[in-house]
C-alpha cells in the first residue's frame, strides 16, 4: 500500500504529459480531474472488454457460425459449397449411427452421473467429521482429478483388457467368466463410465462436503435430542439441505458428460476400430461421431449440424435435470 500511494501521486494528475514546470497549477488539476472522470467512466468497460471480445471471437461467433456452416455443403479444405438448407440435419437424423451415438452417450452419462453422485455424497458425509489430518484425506480424494482423461483412458484400457486385464483376472478368481469389456455394448459403457467416475467423484465430493459443512449444526443437535440416529439425520437433514448443490453438480456434469470425447476416443485395445468407439461403434459418443464425420469423412456441414443437435440436446437435458432434481430433493424435504 505505502509503495503504491507514494509512487503514484505523480501520474494521477499528469498522465503521460511531460508537464513543463511553468504551467499554472489550477489548470493542471482541472485537466487531471477531467482525465480522472474519463478514467472512471471508460475504464470499467475497458477492463471487462477482453472477456467479451475474446468470448465473442472464440466462443459465440464460432457457435453462431456453426449454424451457417450447417446449412451448407462444406469441405475442410475445399471450403464452402452449395446452400443445402436443412439437408444436413435431416441426413444426420436419418443415420442409425447418430442415434446409436445418442444412445451410447446417454447410457455412459447415466452410468457415470448417478453412481458418482451417490458415492460422492457418501464420501462427503464420511469426510464431514472431526478427522485427523483432514487436509490429507481431502487431497487424497482429489488426486485423480489431476490425471488427464487421455491418461486415465490408457490406464483403464489396460485394467479392462479382455484378456489378461486385471479386472477379468480377478473376476476369474471368484469364478466369473471374463467380461467382454471392449466388444459388448453395456460392459464398454461401464468401463468408460468408470473412467469418468474415477476422475470426478473426488472433485464432486469436495463440493458436497463444502455444502454439508454449511448446514447449521444446531439442526443435528435438535435431531439428536429428538432421538434421530445418524442415518436418519443424514436422510432427513443433510440430503434435503444439499438440494441446490446437488442440482449444481448434476447440471455441470450434464454439460460435460454429454460432450464426452477423450475417454471414448482412447478406450480399447488400439488397432482396428479404436478411435471410432469400437469396431461396431459400441461406445461411439455424439462428440466422437462429430469428429469422425468432420475430420475423417471431411464433411464439415454435417459435423456442424451434429454440433447444433448436441447443443439442443444438452439444453433439453439441462432443463429436465433442473426440474427433476428440484422435485426429488423437495420431496426429500417434505419427509
Amino acid at each position, binding site marked *: 500500500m505505502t509503495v*503504491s500511494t507514494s509512487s503514484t501521486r505523480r501520474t494521477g494528475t499528469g498522465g503521460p504529459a511531460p508537464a513543463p514546470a511553468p504551467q499554472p497549477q489550477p489548470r493542471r488539476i482541472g485537466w487531471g480531474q477531467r482525465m480522472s472522470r474519463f478514467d472512471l467512466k471508460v475504464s470499467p468497460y475497458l477492463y471487462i472488454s477482453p472477456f467479451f471480445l*475474446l468470448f465473442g471471437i472464440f466462443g459465440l461467433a*464460432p457457435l453462431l457460425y456453426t449454424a451457417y456452416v450447417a446449412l451448407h455443403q462444406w469441405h475442410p479444405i475445399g471450403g464452402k459449397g452449395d446452400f443445402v438448407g436443412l439437408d444436413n440435419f435431416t441426413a444426420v437424423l436419418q443415420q442409425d449411427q447418430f442415434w446409436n451415438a445418442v444412445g451410447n452417450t446417454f447410457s455412459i452419462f447415466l452410468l457415470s452421473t448417478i453412481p458418482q453422485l451417490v458415492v460422492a455424497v457418501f464420501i462427503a458425509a464420511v469426510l464431514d467429521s472431526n478427522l485427523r489430518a483432514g487436509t490429507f484425506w481431502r487431497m487424497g480424494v482429489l488426486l485423480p482429478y*489431476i490425471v488427464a482423461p487421455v*491418461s486415465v483412458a490408457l490406464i483403464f484400457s489396460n485394467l479392462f483388457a479382455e484378456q489378461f486385464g486385471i479386472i477379468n483376472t480377478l473376476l476369474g478368481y471368484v469364478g466369473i467368466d471374463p467380461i467382454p469389456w471392449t466388444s459388448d455394448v453395456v460392459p464398454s459403457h461401464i468401463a468408460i463410465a468408470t473412467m469418468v467416475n474415477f476422475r470426478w467423484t473426488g472433485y464432486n465430493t469436495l463440493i458436497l462436503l463444502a455444502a454439508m459443512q454449511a448446514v447449521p449444526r444446531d439442526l443435528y443437535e435438535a435431531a439428536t435430542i429428538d432421538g434421530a440416529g445418524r442415518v436418519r439425520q443424514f436422510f432427513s437433514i443433510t440430503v434435503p439441505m444439499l438440494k441446490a448443490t446437488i442440482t*449444481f453438480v448434476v447440471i455441470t456434469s450434464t454439460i460435460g458428460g454429454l460432450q464426452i470425447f477423450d475417454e471414448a476416443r482412447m478406450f480399447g485395445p488400439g488397432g482396428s476400430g*479404436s478411435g471410432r468407439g469400437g469396431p461396431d461403434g459400441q461406445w461411439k459418443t455424439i462428440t466422437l461421431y462429430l469428429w469422425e464425420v468432420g475430420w475423417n469423412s471431411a464433411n464439415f456441414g454435417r459435423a456442424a449440424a451434429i454440433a447444433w443437435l448436441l447443443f439442443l440436446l444438452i439444453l433439453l437435458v439441462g432443463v429436465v435435470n433442473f426440474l427433476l432434481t428440484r422435485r426429488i430433493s423437495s420431496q426429500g424435504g417434505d419427509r
Partner: protein
Amino acid sequence: MSSIPVIAQTAGPGAARAAGRRSSRRHGSFAGGERRAGKVTYTILAIFVLLSAFPFYWSFLIGSKDNDFVFSGSLNLVPGPNFLDNVRRVLESDINFWGATLNSLVAATSTSVSVVLLSTLAGFSFAKLRFKGRRGLLVSVIATMAVPTQLGIVPLYLVMTKLNLQGNLLAIILPGLVTAFGVFWMTQYLQDALPDELIDAARVDGCNLIRTFWHVAMPAARPAAAMLFLFTFVGSWTNFMWPYVILDRASGTLPVALQGLQSQYYTDYPLILTGALLSVVPLLILFVVAGKQLVAGIMAGAVKG
C-alpha cells in the same frame, strides 16, 4: 451484494456462501463437525484413497515390467526392473515427448497467467466499479458459463486454418486467454475481500484506476488468483479434443502425444503406461506443492473446471 441470489441460482450455494462467510470458513469447517471420526470412518476413507491412487501404482507396476508379464495374467504387485528402460523408450520414441512436455508447459502457463490477469481485471471492474449495464453484463458472463463452446469446434477450426495457426500453439492459447468462470470467480472474491475504503484511499492518494487495480486489487485478490491459476493450469494440461484436432506432432501437447503413443505401439502396455505416468508427473509435483489450495478452491467456490 445484490448479485448473490443470482449467483446462488446459477452456481450453487457454495459460491454464494463463499462470498458470505469467507472469514468463518477455516474455523467453521472443523469446529462445527462435532462427531469424532472412528475406525470405520478412517477405514472407508483409506479404501477410497487407495482406490484413487491405485491406477498410479498400476501404471508404475506395468511400466516396471515387460509385456511378457502383462500377457501372463499374473497378479504379482512387486515392481520389476524395467522402469528406467521403459522411461528411456518413451523418451526415445518418435512421439516427441520432451517437445510435447514443453508445449504443454507453454500453453498451460501462458493461459493460466492470462486468465488470472484478465479475470482479475474484469472481476475488479464488476465487483468494485460503478457503470451502466454492470448487472446485465455480469449476468451475461454467468450465462456464457453454460455455453458448451466445444461445439463451435468446426468453425473454430476454419478460423484457425484461415489465420494459418494450424499446428501452432497459439491456436489453443488464444481461445483460452480468459474464461467466464474466471471472471465470475474473481468478481465473487473481490466483492468482499477488497474493502471499498481501500480503493477510496488509493483514489484520494491520486491513483488512477489501473494503478488502483495493480497495487490494491491485485494483492487483495492473491488467494483466489492462486486457485484460479491452478484450475486453469490443470484444465489446460489435461485438455485433449481441441489440441488433438488443431495441432500436429511437432506442436502437440502431452495428451496429443499420448494418443500418438497408443496408435503407434498399441499392445506395448509397459511403454504406454509409462508414458501415461510420465505425463502426470509435472501435475503431481504441482499437486504436492499446491494441492491444499486446490482443495480450498473447490470447497470455496463449488466450481467445475
